[in-house]
């Protein structure tokens, strides 16, 4: 097994021990893990921390949705979105609402590596592509 694969596997296993029963990261466990690693200073620490960060991000994406919109957020729209996303995913989804002026109008939801988008920016981009 190459060094890269070994270190990737180690990062994955380390993150696994910080998870609760629902598969979510327990913050205190993660803090303990990081401080332990910094204390012991294993070889390739920087790479290992980077991989742990990636793995954490990957897991977080799985149970949190980032909703980007422009303008005022509407509670009814948020409730509808949460309801809809709960039917699409396994387990409860945490919603993060972010204001992104570049989408002009509409919304863009990212959950895991799936993106659901209905924004003016994406329509303009599609129109631009159709002319090329």
């Amino acid at each position, binding site marked *: 097994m190459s060094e890269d694969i070994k270190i990737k596997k180690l990062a994955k296993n380390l993150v696994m021990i910080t998870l609760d029963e629902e598969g979510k990261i327990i913050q205190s466990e993660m803090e303990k893990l990081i401080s332990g690693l910094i204390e012991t200073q294993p070889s390739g620490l920087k790479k290992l921390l980077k991989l742990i960060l990636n793995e954490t991000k990957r897991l977080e994406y799985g149970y949190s949705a980032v909703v980007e919109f422009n303008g005022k957020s509407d509670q009814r729209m948020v409730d509808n979105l949460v309801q809809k996303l709960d039917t699409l995913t396994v387990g409860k989804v945490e919603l993060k609402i972010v204001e992104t002026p570049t989408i002009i109008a509409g919304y863009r939801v990212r959950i895991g*590596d*799936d993106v*659901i988008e209905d924004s003016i920016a994406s329509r303009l981009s599609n129109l631009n592509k159709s002319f090329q």
Partner: protein
Amino acid sequence: MSAITDLIKREIENLSTDATRTNVGTISTLADGVAQVEGLSKVMFNEMVEFPNNVLGIALNLEEDSVGCVLLGDTSSLKEGDEVRTTGKLLSVPVGKALLGRVVDAVGRPIDGKGPIDAEKQFPVERIAPGIIPRKSVDQPLQTGIMAVDSMVPIGRGQRELIIGDRSTGKTTIAIDTIINQSKINKQGENSGNPDFRPVFCIYVAVGQKNSNIARTIKLLESTGAMDYVTIVSAPAAVNPANQYLAPYSGCAMGEWFMENGMDALIVYDDLSKHAVAYRQISLILKRPSGREAYPGDVFYLHSRLLERSARLNENNGNGSLTALPIIETQMGDVSGYIPTNVISITDGQIFLETDLFNKGIRPAVSVGLSVSRVGSAAQIKAYKKVAGKVKLELAQFRELAAFSQFESDLDASTKARLDRGARIVELFKQGAYNPVPVEIQAAVMWGMQNDFFDSIPVADISRAVESLKDYLETQGKEPCEQIYKTGKLEEDTERNLRSAFEDWKRTFS
């Protein structure tokens, strides 16, 4: 102006306003035209992915939590962390007659400055080769216009004939000659008004070549008027290896359109050695396990799946064909190299070009012993079959006898006669570049050889005599050639006419 507004209106009307669902990932590493992307969990193998700034890529390595993508455009604007999106489409290229006369890149985009290509259809670059049922055996000739090839290693429509040899031995010249000859035959056929005439459309795929060489080829094809029937797929050495890897498959998809629509096409892959090198480069960057000469384990499949797509389809499937002329460059004449042996085993024969012959001035430098066509005389017109049947054997015997006779001072009459005949055949087969000879004239010249019309001419004058004879047969003595062209046969009447034409010509030749 109104056309532009109409176009914009039409595009707006056709534009989908539904919410879109895409799968995204982020670039984690980027090197040598290959990006490792995290995410993209729903990407398909060989799917086209979209990077920022309209750069396209293909997902080639699907790993547990990342995807290896080869990039097809300018990578200088990309950086780590950029978003990558799936497109839901396999890589496709435009196909059809709109591509004739055009120069395109590996993904079918025009690079000749002649404006956009109005192609009606797109074909995926990777397709499964026709199976056993729709195929039929090769039985129609595809004339190269090169006497040494058409007589000794005839090529049929739907065949895969490898052109192999060291650098600068005339491999590309044979391929280009063949393309030029197709255009001549196409024009002749179209002018004849024969409803059964089937033109051959050509695709020339340039992989890993110098831009100057490709430009020279384009200029040559344009100056000979062949470009009307040709599409050039260009992936020069200057573009990234992903484009070089893709170009042959793109060209093949373009050729398949002709085949599947009941037409005949010829594709030249120039060359597959560089294609294998580009694939090796990609595979090494993608960290795929390497084998012999650092090539990945599937380098045989790389070429077999490409060349198997050339076929002759039966009447129930449109009767079309795709003939392939792959080119392989050997090192120091070694045909037992890894890639040469792979491609030799896939193709239906090979034209081997020898450096020694080339340097001796025997051009095309076709090696009689090592060149073979597994389709054989099934791909020759009857007239040619009749006159060229024994020539390969005669020439092979000549080469062997010539080697032995170096040590022998006193030769018997029969050996001397064979040596004389062989030396004349060698001279007869000498042919200038980009000057293909119509098959009816080739058959007539070969007939003259078989009937001893060249025996009284000194060996040193044979080339001059052949040129003079060709001129004669194209002008004053064209009647027997026209008969061969029309019937494809060498009947008694034609032979009589040939004899009198040869006697006439001999009187004028000094």
